């Protein structure tokens, strides 16, 4: 009796072990499959990248606000690439490789493009310096009242040139 009981107990344990193993494998396979599936990307994620790229066929319209079929296809491509795990920088690089720098809403900081970034602040700075110098020069040229006379508390009228003494006459 004990032998039968022991045998059925072993079978029971074996069934439990196999069940656990199958369950474990199912979890692993399911998890691996889930990882292999592209993660759906939200419209916000797509538009965040689309707003940095220009429509290929319209002038000065970014992808996120463009309603043409070409833009819709590009947005779909962005979504696909996000789903595949590409970063926004990788996606932008891909678009530049495929279509050139002109697709970028912000020109890359390379080569002569630096002029676009450096010239405006340089011009502003130069203008500011020239303006400050101009005002300082004109300030230093304005008539100064001697400190000794300021200290006496005399009125400007009193210290001003005496017109009558120079022969001038105010009518």
């Amino acid at each position: 009796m004990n032998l039968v009981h022991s045998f059925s107990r072993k079978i029971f344990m074996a069934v439990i072990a196999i069940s656990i193993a199958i369950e474990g494998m199912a979890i692993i396979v399911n998890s691996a499959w889930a990882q292999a599936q592209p993660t759906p990307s939200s419209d916000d994620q797509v538009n965040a990248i689309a707003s940095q790229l220009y429509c290929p066929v319209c002038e000065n319209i970014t992808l996120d606000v463009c309603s043409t079929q070409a833009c819709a296809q590009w947005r779909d491509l962005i979504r696909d690439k996000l789903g595949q795990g590409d970063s926004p920088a990788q996606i932008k690089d891909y678009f530049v490789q495929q279509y050139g720098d002109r697709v970028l809403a912000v020109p890359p900081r390379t080569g002569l493009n630096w002029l676009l970034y450096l010239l405006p602040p340089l011009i502003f700075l130069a203008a500011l310096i020239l303006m400050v110098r101009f005002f300082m020069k004109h300030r230093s040229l304005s008539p100064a009242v001697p400190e000794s006379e300021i200290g006496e508390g005399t009125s400007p009228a009193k210290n001003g040139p005496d017109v009558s003494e120079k022969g001038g006459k105010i009518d």
Partner: protein
Amino acid sequence: MIDSFSPPEGQTIRKRLPIWVILAAGVILLSFLVLLVLGLQKSNVQTLTLGSKVADFKLTTFDGSQVTLKSLQGKTVLINFWASWCTTCIDEAAILQEGWQKVGLGGQIVFLGVDYADTEPAAKAFMQKYSISYLNGPDLRSALSQQFHISGVPETYLIDADGTLRGIKIGPFGSAEELSTFLEQKSGN
């Protein structure tokens, strides 16, 4: 006191700007000139005209092979710019494929499809849908569309065996006869 700031009669005070101000102004001016020249160069590039030689170019096809104009020397080359989002390209897709099967398979005329500003999945789906079998590739970095100064799609160019531009067709071909006439007249066959 005031008189001491005035220059003596008949004389003017000439103040020189500091050298760094002059240098900075020079650099800024030069930069502007460079930008201006580059802009002018870009806008003033000669457009392709009939009878002009076409510079060599490279097209990487969707299957990864590379084709250059130089490698096609001795053959007439038809270059068709298209895109899957272009509705009029749909109309001429069948005409081009039919034309290719009719005259291209002989080997003397090569058809090249240049997919402009398109996505690869959409382009491939388009090609499959309209059974396009001649060489096709994306216009990488928009190099070819810039070289030919295309104004839109579809546009078709015909280059003769010597690399001279013989035909320009803006817009779609309306019929197989129109394509046939384009090929016969322009290629001199």
